[in-house]
């Protein structure tokens, strides 16, 4: 069965600083990978997804992620964080016969002014 690990429970960065959120997955074949963001009291919004092809994928709100098969990783990055990026971020994988998302435990991002 597939699994997702987000090693960092909580990350704090200053506004304008760069950001990298880590995600490691476990799955036998090439998975479908996703990053979602959840603002307080809100549902999940898709930031970006990787299915195949170019391993560097661009998403909304200036986010990007890089799929590295050798490291089983799909880290999320942003060059300059804005205060509005403060939220919880979830990495997820779909690897079974249907769209069953397996989520990581999430990383809470705090942005200092």
């Amino acid at each position: 069965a597939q699994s997702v690990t987000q090693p960092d429970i909580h990350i704090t960065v200053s506004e304008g600083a760069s950001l990298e959120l880590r995600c490691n997955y476990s799955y036998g074949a090439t998975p479908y990978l996703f990053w979602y963001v959840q603002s307080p009291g809100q549902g999940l919004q898709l930031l970006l997804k990787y299915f195949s092809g170019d391993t560097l994928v661009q998403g909304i709100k200036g986010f990007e992620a890089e799929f590295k098969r050798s490291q089983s990783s799909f880290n999320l990055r942003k060059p300059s964080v804005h205060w509005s990026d403060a939220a919880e971020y979830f990495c997820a994988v779909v690897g079974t016969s249907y769209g069953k998302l397996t989520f990581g435990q999430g990383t809470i991002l705090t942005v200092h002014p």
Partner: protein
Amino acid sequence: DARVTQTPRDKVTEMGQEVTMRCQPILGHNTVFWYRQTMMQGLELLAYFRNRAPLDDSGMPKDRFSAEMPDATLATLKIQPSEPRDSAVYFCASGLDYQEETQYFGPGTRLLVL
């Protein structure tokens, strides 16, 4: 702007009461997912429907939970009887295809069982 809607947004009830949560998927979507989010377990899949048929409800406690799709525009999740451990946020998501397409999440129903 098409969105998944869920009602109610918040629900407080007493242990033993029946709880019904409703979800309206995005028009035209043919897959519906129910997830539960708790601090301890994170996000867990409870049930999955495709073309209104339940294909996977292995994540759902069978003795008290039930999920249905009376029609293509309505999905329901019922808990009877409810217990304090059911307190969580329940999300509905819909999509167009189980493999290629992404899932669009509703705002969730926050349930508190006293």
